[in-house]
């Protein structure tokens, strides 16, 4: 965190000054470790064992917050008798369909009821309309937590083998150190104290990444650290406003406010779409209001009740369109044109040579950035061009480069990791032809409308009918960013009066809203994110600095900061409570609950909508109002986090026969060869990639600045003195790092900050690689991400770049071929890698479907 989020880290340092204990778990000793109280060096890719070990410790030593767990989580829910755990099936849960290579989730359900997830794969439903499902709360809760099929007992069995010994054997973390962490965490949780988890892509970028975070979530639920001050799980986002770009998404499968994108296979009509995506219980029962208001924002007067609010104008998904899937499709010629804005994928993501090969198949490419990047010049400065394997004059792709305005040159908002919107004002005009994204998108849309103005083809109506009337100002006709904020906030359709909060929204078209969770950010016609009242002039919650979604709430689910009776768990951790005299929830923050609903309220059997939320249901977005230790639905790879080894590992899975996440996405292609699943003799070391403070992600913003470039001028690898000795590598010299995908060179930094770990009696070495460099900028070097394969987590399609295997040798790389795009780089017996990949029972994977194994893209393919 100190490395990549030094500004956010000021609060960690402040907490430390006030006596907080900082624990840092990382394969490397970093700038964070340098100021932490405890540093734990871990084998990359084994965090679920480490965190699962903590769960085991909590359960075996009775360290959980019993009252919190029984009242607010689904620990007491009884699961169907058909459910089988990974303990029973050697690494698979019940419901694995080896034909489809995915889980069928019926057996994970609460006994007698089908649940509705707040997020994730909502289409996992059986197809039965949700409104007819009845209440979604678990039929039976066992408050004693003793029922053999209740979540708590399933959890206990699931983690029964995640012992301190297993942690030591698997993660390379000494038992005593692990126990010290577990004890420190438990000692600092409960009524009087809370602990927080912070993570970043070190957890997400794995083939089982979502489950890493789920494991931390289970710990926080057991310890009662959710919805309370000083608790929670903080996702440290990698860029300014990347949180904003999931709220008002640049993701292919979401509409603003986490409303799902319609799917062609399921959501053929508005009615079906609503049925498939609303919940019967909890806050998502309000779903139709948000959707109708969004369609009113998109299509204005053309969205009417008669035409289902112009629902059919929305594009419908026909398959997976995530980054890797799209690039693979591009390589197969299925993608003709592509926009890349503020991204430099050939440096920033994975398997650069494959991505460049894909872009060579494009007809046209648009790149918007501050300066030409490796992506925009893939046809000119790429390694394969340098080597003469590909000739520039043979690439037909037409590339358009648009210079972008910096944040100081435009108005707008940043949404940061704590959901806080902060406005930034333009300080200077952008130079030359540089323009903001807002300018680019607005004028592109305006010109498209112009082009289609006279069309009579019905397919052009979505463009013709799109509301696209933002006021512009100044010589360059910059759209007014505040007008966009107003639309995001929403307003009464008839009067244009801004909505004060999302509870005011209706499903009859009388309200218009661009993003329901942001409603209130333009309350009273005032730019709320622009508020800058200093912390010293208000209380410690500082609710007048910026604006947090939803409804300016600083802590989500804060009903959980009070006990079931509505009293604070302790005076020290007092935050939101029930005021008996006034008959409402009150506190330091905006209560995240129905304001007038008393703790004693229990829904009637026939309750509908938000009336289903009981007075002790803090987690209102879940249909049952409880936080989910066990996720009966919504995840593609199991209801409980389970340790799977990375796609490429040094070891067999110590816990199960199933080696890797069975549901992971793989791309079995010539350009994307994999190593053996474990112990590949050609690749005996573990590699993990990361960022440095001095550079920003793929370097497009920092490698052009002399003051930053001089601080970290060259690509380097970090290795331990022991590995340097073993391989004859010298500090300051050169090393070549190789995978089956590519070969890169880097300067060598020998440091005790990396230390070999003892795992199952074997001394293993980990290599650290920052990934900032490329072929452009003031400082240049090879890109670490060239080494990484296309392999992904099934829930969010993110690549596995934090744990894979490689080889390292002294000296600079060969100037000849170093990427497999024109055939295997490493000679292999045909099919060898595949044979070693999975053990039974998920061995026979069927290729050809997205979400599991992709060989070649078929157009119009369904998920």
């Amino acid at each position, binding site marked *: 965190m100190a490395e990549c989020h*030094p500004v956010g880290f000021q609060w960690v340092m402040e907490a430390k000054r006030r006596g907080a204990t900082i624990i840092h778990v990382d394969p490397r000793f970093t700038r964070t470790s340098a100021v932490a*109280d405890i540093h734990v060096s871990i084998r990359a890719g084994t965090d679920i064992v480490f965190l699962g070990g903590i769960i085991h410790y909590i359960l075996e030593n009775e360290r959980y917050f019993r009252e919190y767990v029984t009242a607010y989580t689904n620990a007491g829910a009884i699961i169907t008798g058909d459910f089988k755990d990974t303990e029973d099936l050697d690494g698979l849960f019940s419901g694995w369909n080896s034909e489809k290579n995915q889980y069928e989730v019926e057996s994970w359900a609460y006994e007698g009821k089908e649940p509705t997830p707040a997020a994730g794969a909502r289409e996992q439903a059986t197809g039965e309309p949700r409104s007819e499902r009845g209440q979604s709360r678990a039929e039976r809760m066992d408050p004693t937590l003793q029922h053999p099929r209740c979540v708590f007992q399933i959890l206990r069995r699931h983690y029964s083998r995640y012992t301190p010994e297993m942690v030591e054997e698997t993660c390379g973390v000494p038992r005593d150190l692990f126990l010290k962490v577990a004890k420190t965490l438990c000692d600092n949780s409960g009524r009087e104290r809370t602990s927080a988890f912070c993570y970043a892509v070190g957890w997400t970028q794995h083939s089982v990444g979502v489950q890493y975070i789920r494991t931390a979530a289970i710990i926080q639920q057991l310890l009662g650290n959710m919805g309370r001050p000083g608790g929670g799980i903080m996702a440290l986002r990698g860029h300014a406003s990347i949180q904003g770009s999931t709220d008002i998404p640049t993701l292919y499968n979401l509409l603003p406010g986490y409303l799902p994108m319609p799917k062609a296979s399921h959501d053929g009509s508005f009615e079906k779409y609503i049925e498939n995506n609303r919940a019967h219980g909890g806050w998502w029962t309000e779903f139709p209001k948000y959707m109708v208001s969004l369609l009113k924002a998109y299509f204005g007067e053309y969205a009417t009740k008669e035409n289902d609010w112009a629902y059919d104008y929305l594009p419908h998904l026909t398959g997976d369109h995530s980054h890797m899937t799209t690039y693979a499709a591009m390589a197969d010629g299925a993608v003709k044109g592509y926009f890349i804005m503020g991204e430099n994928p050939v440096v920033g993501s994975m398997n650069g040579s494959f991505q460049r090969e894909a872009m060579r198949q494009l007809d046209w490419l648009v790149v918007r950035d501050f300066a030409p990047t490796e992506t925009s010049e893939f046809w000119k400065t790429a390694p394969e061009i340098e080597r003469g394997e590909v000739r520039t004059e043979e690439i037909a792709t037409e590339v358009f480069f648009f210079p972008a305005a910096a944040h100081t040159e435009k108005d707008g908002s940043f949404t940061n990791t704590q959901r806080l919107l902060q406005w930034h004002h333009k300080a200077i005009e952008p130079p030359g032809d540089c323009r903001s994204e807002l300018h680019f998108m607005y004028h592109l849309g305006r010109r498209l409308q112009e082009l289609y103005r006279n069309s009579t083809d019905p397919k052009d109506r979505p463009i013709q009918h799109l509301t696209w009337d933002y006021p512009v100002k100044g010589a360059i006709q910059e759209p007014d960013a505040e007008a966009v904020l107003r639309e995001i906030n929403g307003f009464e359709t008839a009067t244009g009066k801004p909505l004060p909060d999302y509870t005011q929204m209706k499903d009859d078209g009388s309200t218009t809203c661009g993003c329901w969770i942001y409603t209130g950010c333009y309350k009273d016609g005032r730019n709320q994110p622009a508020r800058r009242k200093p912390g010293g002039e208000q209380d410690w919650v500082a609710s007048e600095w910026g604006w947090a979604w939803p409804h300016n709430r600083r802590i989500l689910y804060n009903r959980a900061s009070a006990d079931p009776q509505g009293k604070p768990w302790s005076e020290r951790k007092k935050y939101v409570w029930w005021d008996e005299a006034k008959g409402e929830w009150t506190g330091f923050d905006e209560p995240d609950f129905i304001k007038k609903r008393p703790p004693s309220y229990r829904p009637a059997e026939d309750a509908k909508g938000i009336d289903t939320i009981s007075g002790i249901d803090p987690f209102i977005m879940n249909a049952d109002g409880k936080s989910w230790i066990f996720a009966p639905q919504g995840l593609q790879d199991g209801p409980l986090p389970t340790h799977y080894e990375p796609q490429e590992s040094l070891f067999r899975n110590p816990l199960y026969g199933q080696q890797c996440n069975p549901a992971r996405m793989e791309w079995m292609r010539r350009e994307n060869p994999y190593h053996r699943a474990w112990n590949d003799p050609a690749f005996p070391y573990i590699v993990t990639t990361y960022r440095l403070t001095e550079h920003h992600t793929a370097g497009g913003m920092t490698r052009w600045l002399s003051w930053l470039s001089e*601080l*970290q001028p060259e690509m380097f690898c970090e290795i331990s003195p022991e590995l340097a000795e073993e391989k004859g590598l010298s*500090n300051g010299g050169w090393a070549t790092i190789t995978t089956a995908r590519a070969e890169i060179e880097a300067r060598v930094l020998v440091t005790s900050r990396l230390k070999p770990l003892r795992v199952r009696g074997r001394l293993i070495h980990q290599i650290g690689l920052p990934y900032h460099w490329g072929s452009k900028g003031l400082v240049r070097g090879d890109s670490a991400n060239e080494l990484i394969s296309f392999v992904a987590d099934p829930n969010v399609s993110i690549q596995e770049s934090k744990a894979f295997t490689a080889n390292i040798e002294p000296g600079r790389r060969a100037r000849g071929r170093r990427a497999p795009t024109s055939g295997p780089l490493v000679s292999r017996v045909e099919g060898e890698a595949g044979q070693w990949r999975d053990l039974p029972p998920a061995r026979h994977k069927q290729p050809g479907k997205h979400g599991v194994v992709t060989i070649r893209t078929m157009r119009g393919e369904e998920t």
Partner: protein
Amino acid sequence: MPTGFFTTVCIGCKVCEVACKQWNQLPDDGFTFTGMSYDNSVDLGASTWRHVEFVERPVPLSGQTGGNFSWLMLSDVCKHCQRAGCLENCPTGAIIRTEFDSVYVQPDVCNGCGYCVVGCPFGVIDRLESDGRAWKCTLCYDRQKDQMEPACAKACPTDSILFGEVAELRAKAGERLEQLHARGVKEAYLYGADAAGQPGTGGLNAFFLLVDRPEVYNLPPDPVAPAKYVKESWASLAMASAGLLLAAIGAVWSART
């Protein structure tokens, strides 16, 4: 009003280096990978007025768990000594003490003689190759004139660099030291906080909190402004001259007799 810096062990983000270079529009020092931990700017110089040290030590820091290792970071800067070697050595009067009690090089007066360079016991001040003049931290004289704090302190995210009135900073430093000692970091101490602790410089306006010997941070254990020795060296010179004279007279005398 005397102002200065109190710099404590930091998180090594180097934003002070960048903020300093940006505000003062200093050039880069070239793009060289040194292989010395995360330190690629090496030392203070004519175009690097803030420099973050990275010290990898095979010893743990008190209170830390996780092996026999620690990594210390510290942002070094001109100390604006009470008794400044550079100022005392400057023959042209280019180096002055300002109303903020800081030591300031007037670029329009400096003739690039370089006497100040050898006068600094810390090796802070240096001449720029391109123009030959001597340059160093100005304690952001221009910003202070406008009631703004220096760029490095403004940018420091963790308040490891504190700017303020020297007396106040000393009080804060004392408190911080006590806190650390209470937390068990017994090795923490203040470097150059006053004349008693560092008589050779008369105390520093920019002083530091360290957790290891000064040499570990590339700081001299007992810095002395060279001009402090002027009286003694003149006296010994006089003594030596007198001695030589006596010897010469003696020699002539003895030769005669």
